[in-house]
């Protein structure tokens, strides 16, 4: 049981380049999330998904796109990278249950440190 995995761990992009950050979870969670964490700050929600084929914007979606074709995978696409997208990106997942034996916290991947120069 690997939990939430993210690739790559580090990446340097030039302005205007594009890339996809990969995220996979093996816990059969319906809910998945993408956050960015700027230096010394908390987490800001970029996009989230409540199941395969269903995605929605968070508070900072501009410059990003997502897709969710399977329960396991939730890739984040950066188009036309800009220096303002320099950040650490976290993928997270959580179950849809609310009580009983369900846990309800988010499980996080190890993060991707992205630098745009």
């Amino acid at each position, binding site marked *: 049981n690997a939990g939430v995995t993210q690739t790559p761990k580090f990446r340097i992009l030039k302005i205007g380049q594009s890339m996809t950050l990969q995220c996979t979870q093996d816990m059969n969670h319906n809910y998945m999330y993408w956050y960015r964490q700027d230096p010394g700050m*908390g987490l800001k*929600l970029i996009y989230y998904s409540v199941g395969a084929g269903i995605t929605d914007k968070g508070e900072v979606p501009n410059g990003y796109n997502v897709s969710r074709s399977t329960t396991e995978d939730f890739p984040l696409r950066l188009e036309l990278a800009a220096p303002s997208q320099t950040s650490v990106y976290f993928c*997270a997942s*959580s179950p849809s249950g*609310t009580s009983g034996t369900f846990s*309800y*916290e*988010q499980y996080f991947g190890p993060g991707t440190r992205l630098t745009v120069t």
Partner: protein
Amino acid sequence: AQTVTQSQPEMSVQEAETVTLSCTYDTSESDYYLFWYKQPPSRQMILVIRQEAYKQQNATENRFSVNFQKAAKSFSLKISDSQLGDAAMYFCAYRSQFTSGTYKYIFGTGTRLKVLA
């Protein structure tokens, strides 16, 4: 909208001593969940402790305990017998009720804890 406030950007504690990290939140919901996450230099987000709002009893996990004051909307984390490995950024988080098709997690800006030998 819900907000989470951590008013202490940085705290220090002597090894083996006790420290309390503060968190306040604002919400109109009656049912919700609160969490403390630890983020060590590795950047991995690790769940420390969770609290269900409907439970009056404060959650405890070994050396970690919370003081949950629902009326005051306060959720502080107490670390007893502090160890060098406790040095990290600590985030307080709030999970809202199920609305608009998902649960929203709101994070505070974090408190950096230094443990002095």
